[in-house]
């Protein structure tokens, strides 16, 4: 009889279904094959014209039916596609999930294509007044729903038969990890036997790209797109904006075993700590990120030497990679130089609200497949960052535990600890 409770007497949380979509493709099989062969999904932008833009590359998901239909519809389709894969792997009735839904998704706004078409459907007044007048004449809800922050989750709740009020959340680039954390906590509190946690982001619009550009956050290495994302390299110059989704079916280990489900991994610990230093930069001593890592380890009941591999946030911005190295080396000490630490973002870019969930999915697969995906484009190491980044080529390795980091604007730091076995 397996131990069903963790070191704090809480129900152990198992993963029984995983789904993922990135610019590398739909589903775990395609993504894993590409990821472990060091293939990049970063490509030139074709969804909109790139005139006047400093960054003309991205990891957009351009191959779904909703890819050209705006952020809200694409985010929904990304979420639905990943969740469907996860539900199917978990062997659950995809229309009657019966547990709560936690969705990490980007904040929504009325898309420019809609703004233009609403505005130009009339000629009276100007600016906002005209938009409001046209708006009150609309007879259907399609456009309205793209502007409601709860609508995507509402549709997903209908689609999958999740229970209760779905939670839509944003902790910026840590959102996907927070969605998983909320699911873990709900199961641990005994509120439910299972939860569906999804991170999805299809919001790579021109305006989003420009906003990040204006903050100097994006790589401008446009000439060879697949080489632009180079975490931990000396010549890294920003992240690559990307889209994607990750979904996990979380279940109490007890419920999973009772129904004979295959346990794909264990969500062993979650930790978080907010930073009060600056809106986009982290505290120079790295203390909040350090505290988040330590909180996740403590929650998992593991000491520093209990982690086999780090799935890094590794965005490829000068600031993040430096600070992440500082945090990891503070927590893990000298051991960090010999611990594998790789960044999926070198291949898929930064999927923003989805990143924490996508990377949790890849972390779980890393343990199951005993293969660590590489950090590609590691041709010019940053001498200030001494890490084993699993450079350029995958590595076969037994991995029993993973730390996955997510850090975001607004002082968000969330870390997950996953394990292959229940203890």
């Amino acid at each position, binding site marked *: 009889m397996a131990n069903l409770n963790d070191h704090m007497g809480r129900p152990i949380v198992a993963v029984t279904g995983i789904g993922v979509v990135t610019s590398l493709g739909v589903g775990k099989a395609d993504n894993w094959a590409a990821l472990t062969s060091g293939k990049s999904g970063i490509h030139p932008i074709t969804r*909109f*014209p*790139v005139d*006047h*833009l400093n960054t003309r590359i991205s990891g957009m998901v351009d191959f779904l039916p909703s890819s050209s239909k705006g952020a809200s519809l694409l985010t929904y389709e990304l979420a639905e596609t990943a969740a469907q894969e996860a539900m199917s792997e978990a062997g659950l009735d995809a229309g009657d999930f019966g547990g709560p839904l936690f969705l990490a*998704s980007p*904040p*929504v*706004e*009325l898309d*420019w294509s809609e*703004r*233009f078409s609403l*505005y130009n459907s009339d000629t009276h007044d*100007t*600016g*906002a*007044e005209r*938009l*409001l007048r046209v*708006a*009150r004449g*609309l007879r259907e*809800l399609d*456009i*309205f729903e793209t502007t*409601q*922050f*709860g609508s995507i*989750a*509402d549709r997903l*709740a209908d689609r999958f038969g999740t229970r*209760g*009020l*779905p*939670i*839509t*959340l*944003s*902790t*910026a680039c840590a959102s996907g990890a927070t969605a998983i954390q*909320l699911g873990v*906590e709900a199961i641990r*509190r005994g509120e439910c036997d299972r939860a569906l946690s999804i991170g999805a982001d299809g919001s790579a619009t*021109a*305006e989003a790209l*420009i906003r990040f*550009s*204006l*903050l100097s956050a994006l790589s401008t290495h446009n000439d060879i797109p697949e080489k632009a994302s180079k975490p931990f390299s000396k010549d890294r110059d920003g992240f690559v904006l990307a889209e994607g989704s990750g979904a996990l079916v979380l279940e109490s280990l007890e419920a999973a075993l009772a129904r004979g489900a295959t346990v794909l991994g264990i969500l062993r610990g979650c930790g*978080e*700590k*907010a*930073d*009060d230093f600056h*809106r986009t930069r982290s505290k120079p001593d790295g203390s*909040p990120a350090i505290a988040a890592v330590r909180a996740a380890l403590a929650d998992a009941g593991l000491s520093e030497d209990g982690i086999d591999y780090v799935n890094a946030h590794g965005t490829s911005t000068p600031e993040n990679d430096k600070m992440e190295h500082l945090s990891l080396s503070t927590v893990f000490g000298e051991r960090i130089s010999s611990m594998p630490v790789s960044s999926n973002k070198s291949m898929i870019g930064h999927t923003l609200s989805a990143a924490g969930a996508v990377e949790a999915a890849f972390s779980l697969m890393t343990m199951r497949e005993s293969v660590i995906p590489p950090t590609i484009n590691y041709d010019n190491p940053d001498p200030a960052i001494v890490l084993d980044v699993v450079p350029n080529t995958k590595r076969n390795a037994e991995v029993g535990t993973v730390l996955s980091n997510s850090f975001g*604007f*607004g*002082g968000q730091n969330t870390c997950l600890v996953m394990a292959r076995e229940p203890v």
Partner: protein
Amino acid sequence: MNPRDVVISGIGLVSSLGEGPDAHWQKLVQPRLEPVLEASRFSPYTVHPLPEIDWNLQIAKRGDQRQMETWQRLGTYAAGLALDDAGIKGNDELCATMDMVVAAGGGERDEAVDAAILAASESRNDRDVLLNEKLTTELRPTLFLAQLSNLLAGNISIVHKVTGSSRTFMGEEGAGVAAVETAAARIRSGQSTHILVGGAFQTEHSDMLLGYELAGYLHRGAWRPVWQRQGAEGGGVVTGSGGAFLVLEQREHAESRGRKIYAELGPVLSGRARRRRGELDGEIDTLLKQAALPNGELLAISGASGAHAATAAEKSALDANPAIAARGFSTLTGHMKEAQFPFAVALAALAVDRKAAYPVFDATVEKPFAGVPKTVLATAIGYHQFEGMALIKAA
């Protein structure tokens, strides 16, 4: 009584009526209080505008104020009021271990830039190029941060040093319901000892009105109380700017630091009716049953928005129970979206604390409540989706 009960130990409120729990109480207990209305700026829509606020009182650094637009300033300000009220502000240890759940929408776009782009779009066919051209040259870089949903929480961390954890829930009234519900569950389970929870809504911006009006939800024409908008022109919602933050605390934690407790937060209930299938009436009834209402006369602080269908459903459910005396506070504050449920809970806690009910906010529809409200119901039935309720009890 249980040491892990959830109690309310701090309240921060801002609305057109003023700021702080005392100011709100004093206004709201005045019989026949007139709402503060702004009917011309956004005509044909009426809104309840922000009162005069000296931001310096809660956001000391001008640099911080400049990094925000009004929505984030308002939320950061209301959060500061709640922290002050709970005796937590400036206490580094309590702030560093304090968790936070913020219910947020988005911040303000640059209306002038948007209007210029729209105007130019009338004479251009290459609208996507136009967009790149204008946005790359005219957007203020920091405005993006002022628009990001989770940056209200981010600013609260920066300004007030609340750093235990920071989570932002989105989704209109439902975000406020889920924020309070999750915060309470964390305290009850021992995951947290003190949590800042709440939200803010700044309606005096055309995009914030557009978010309702794309489905025709806004009331037009002469203002009416929230229960009396059925059949009037428009969709029934009159919005208001405001914010509500609560400090929720484990009873033992609040008592051990000798703090005043306004009230206990009892069960928090949430739901998602599939309204297109006609489930709203049934869902409201289910929530009322789950709340296990006490016997006898019951004061209900209703967050009804005025939206025709949702408000009619809520009214009929409340009317069906003759023991319930409802107070639709949107009559006096307007609808504050993500902040609506935390605001309802705050007003309920105030009534419990002051051992008195509010007079009727609308004499033609609401009925008097004479007794001492020991338990008060708070509701937020979303104008479009999601439902929530809570029972607030004498501490």
